[in-house]
């Protein structure tokens, strides 16, 4: 480590503080606002910390809005999207890694190509396709959309993980009499578990955060997911800032929890373009 002078240390400290103020302070401010009574929210000059912290904003959110329904819908849809994506991507990535067949590289390239599609380029025809299939305004449509959007990065990320697992291990298990299926279940999957967990969590975050698909595919209030529900709360007549900030705070809590857990896997996934947006 190179020794720094006092001035260099001061400069470094100030730069880090400025970066934190820009990146993290707005989130902190949202959390603090959510805990203030409205007299303090609109106080001028504003104060940093709530003098009389209150949970009344969260209470109003639960009592006067359908927040709990939106939350439940988001949990259902995001979890289903994770399960479906992994069910398709784990065997798919294994097939793309361990088998050689005609067109394999072309399939891999096509998958990468679909990764470039933005939702807005697909949403209009996607919406019409879902209407034709009778799936418009169902959670199934959302699950399919999120799965389709996660699959490209899921396949690429898991493929990188499978490639890093020495094939000798499977061969050894199979020489010992295990079937290929058992070798995969007992040898390959446990070794690829960090990759599978990271893929699942990134899929979850993608589904949890999505606005556009839920906005267009869902019209019933009782089927809405959180991002659309919150946007509608914001657009409804007089803005209740305390309640809106409380909803923002509650929505990011699951993201914060899973993200803290996945952070160590994330840099590996980043290399293969694990996150999109």
């Amino acid at each position, binding site marked *: 480590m190179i020794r720094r002078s006092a001035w260099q240390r001061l400069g470094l400290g100030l730069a880090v503080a400025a970066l934190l103020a820009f*990146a993290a302070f707005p989130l902190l401010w949202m959390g603090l606002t959510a805990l203030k009574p409205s007299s303090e929210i609109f106080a001028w000059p*504003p104060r940093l910390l709530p003098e009389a912290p209150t949970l009344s904003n969260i209470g109003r959110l639960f009592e006067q809005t359908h927040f709990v329904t939106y939350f439940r819908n988001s949990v259902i849809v995001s979890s289903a999207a994770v399960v479906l994506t992994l069910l398709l991507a784990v065997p798919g990535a294994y097939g793309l890694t361990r088998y050689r067949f005609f067109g394999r590289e072309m399939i891999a390239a096509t998958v990468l190509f679909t990764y470039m599609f933005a939702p807005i380029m697909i*949403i209009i025809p996607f919406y*019409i396709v879902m209407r034709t299939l009778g799936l418009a305004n169902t959670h199934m449509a959302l699950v399919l959309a999120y799965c389709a*959007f996660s699959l490209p990065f899921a396949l690429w990320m898991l493929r990188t993980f499978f490639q890093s697992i020495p094939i000798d291990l499977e061969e050894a298990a199979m020489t010992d009499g295990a079937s290929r299926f058992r070798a995969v279940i007992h040898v390959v999957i446990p070794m690829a578990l960090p990759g599978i967990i990271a893929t699942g969590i990134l899929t979850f975050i993608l589904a949890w955060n999505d606005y556009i698909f839920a906005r267009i595919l869902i019209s019933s209030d009782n089927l809405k997911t959180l991002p659309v529900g*919150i946007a509608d709360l914001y*657009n409804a007549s007089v803005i209740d800032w305390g309640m809106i900030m409380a909803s923002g705070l509650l929505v990011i809590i699951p993201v914060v929890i899973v993200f803290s857990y996945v952070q160590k896997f994330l840099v590996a996934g980043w290399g293969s373009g694990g996150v999109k947006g």
Partner: protein
Amino acid sequence: MQTRGLPGLLLVLPALLLLTTLTLYPVGYGFWLSLHAKHSLFPQQTFVGLDNYLYLLNDPEFWESLRIGLIYSVSTILLQLVLGVAAALLLHQGFFGRNIVRGLVLFPYMIPTVVAVILWKWMLNNQFGLINFGLVSLGISSGPINWFGRSYIMISLILVSVWQFFPFVLLAVLARLQSIPTELYDAARVDGAGPVNRFLFVTLPQLASVLFIIILLRSIWMFTKFDTVWLMTQGGGAERYIRTMPVYAYLRTFNYYEAGMGAAVAIVMFLMLVVAAATYFFLFRQEDQL
């Protein structure tokens, strides 16, 4: 041992089938739709050939959306790059609490867009926002600024977008920085290179390949960014001044109910991206990349 044959294809098939029906097919269908006049809600449609595209050629709103979209994407991409690279260099230094800081600055990228937008709408609120309070108390501005009025809404949108997406650049660059061999820096020091020269002649060339991919991905995603822009247009009367191409495609389809025209806007956007990406590859791709 890589086994030959069919089982591999069978394993990929379900994923491939879903991707084909839900992404490739819609893109093809979107192209077909752009050649038709079709109401967004009713099944009837009439083939009109290239009429939708010809209409767009003479449509001032379309050209305006292109202009606004370019201002938005170019400025946000440049700012994300500068800020992301600078922050990555900073967080590559050793200091107390570095891992916590690294975790915290990534949050803006991980939270739902709707949260990013509402929290900045609160920060930038005309009457009670913290930003206006700061600007007025510090004497930078004589009165509160209307951040969502016509003169400032683009700046507000750029601010929110850069805040939300610079962590992507930061993390990708940081991952690459960690893999640069320290011997390169030692050698440069022996040759008498100062910090600026070490950055220009050691760090930057090593970052070239990752920057190549970051710029490509971020350009695609910013040019087609819908949710951040759309949510910023909600409320306030200056929606027109941030109507980028994705928003225009959406409005055509879901407000004017012209699905064919909306699809045509999306296809034009797609074709522009393909041409831009091809040019970019042709100009900047180096042998060792991808």
